[in-house]
């Protein structure tokens, strides 16, 4: 098969790169022996591939590498700084949360009392119902003689949260009753409470 010039030009690049199959390469070689135009195209292509591929063709500016490595070091430092700041922020947030918890825990245990001189009802059983008066500062067990005016029943825990202080006269009675009810069987304790509230 005789190749035409147009066919050879299509194969020139692969010919230069040595990527043609042996039979095709032989055909191109045969064509080149008689065609000055294709020989010129091949010689020119080989020349420019060799010239452009030479390292001297493009030189890297002398300050490129030092400047690049300076920027890389800066970036590295920034990354480390950012990681440190992040860790520091995390630690700070943790400390702040811990501090908040520490400071707020006593608030849960000890509410602001309605009377500045009063003591919290630390010994009172928190589930028991007590009686409070909206105008008063103390809570009482039902039937306390010092209870006056319009009153309502709330658990001890809630009374403490609202800032009521136990009535010192009936607090001892409240504790005594609770201890007694715990000692009795459950059903009898309920009876005793009912009987007590009716006093």
């Amino acid at each position, binding site marked *: 098969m005789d190749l035409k010039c147009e066919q050879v*030009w299509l194969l020139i*690049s692969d010919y230069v790169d040595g990527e043609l199959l042996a039979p095709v390469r032989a055909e191109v070689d045969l064509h080149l022996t008689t065609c000055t135009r294709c020989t010129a195209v091949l010689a*020119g292509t080989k020349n420019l591939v*060799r010239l*452009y*591929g030479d390292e001297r063709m493009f030189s890297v500016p002398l300050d*490129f590498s030092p400047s690049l490595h300076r920027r890389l070091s800066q*970036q*590295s430092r920034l990354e480390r700084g950012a990681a440190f700041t992040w860790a520091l922020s995390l630690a700070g947030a943790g400390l702040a949360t811990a501090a908040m918890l520490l400071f707020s825990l006593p608030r849960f245990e000890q509410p602001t009392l309605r009377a500045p001189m009063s003591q919290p009802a630390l010994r009172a059983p928190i589930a028991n119902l007590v009686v409070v008066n909206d105008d008063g500062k103390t809570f009482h067990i039902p039937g306390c003689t010092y209870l006056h005016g319009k009153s309502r029943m709330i658990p001890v825990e809630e009374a403490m949260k609202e800032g009521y202080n136990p009535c010192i006269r009936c607090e001892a009675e409240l504790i005594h009753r609770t201890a007694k009810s715990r000692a009795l069987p459950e059903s009898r304790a309920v009876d005793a409470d009912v009987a007590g509230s009716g006093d």
Partner: protein
Amino acid sequence: MPFQAKARSEGKGPPSGEIPSLAYERELIDRIRHGERERFAELIRPYERRVYVTALAILQNDADAQEVAQEAILKAFAHLNQFRGDSRFSTWLTRVTINEARMRRRKQHAEIMKPFNELESEDDEGQFIPQDFADWREIPSEELERKEVRDLLRKALASIADKYREVFVLRDIQHLSIEETAEAIGITPGTVKTRLLRARLMLRDILAPGLGGIWSRPLAFEKGTKPWT
């Protein structure tokens, strides 16, 4: 023992600036990802020239090329975790550089300034017919020592369309394989071959008269006279 010293003692590490083995490079990348960030300088050193020349070939301006090449390397540093390892690091880095350079070119509205032949042949992947059949004698590589020869070659390269120039630079200047070039640019190997052929034939045609003139007679200033007098 530091990683580099350890690798060298085991005969694995390449001398500074040489392309390392694939296994060594993978291990190095792994170590950088796991916190040895300062080792990135070692990873990048063999490819600094490639990155710069790729940026220069696309942007045709030394200052822009330097800036873009550095940006591309810093970007590769910041996003090394995105390198999946299914190609060579150098191919991935070349792709990052090409993208960075293309973005810069777009920003500069370079499209408005496209050379005439690019506008003319934007979608033309067809056959290129050589116009100049002057016989080229072999040009000695020593001619590249002359700045005007390098400038002539650079101007010729700048005058062809971006899509041909990118392929030509990666294949004939960076010596990437057809497959690596295809991967770096994001085209098929077949398209790489077509564009490469066209780029070579176009450059040959552009350079034939100029180079023929230079080779055939010595330049005036070489005789001791000033060329501008």
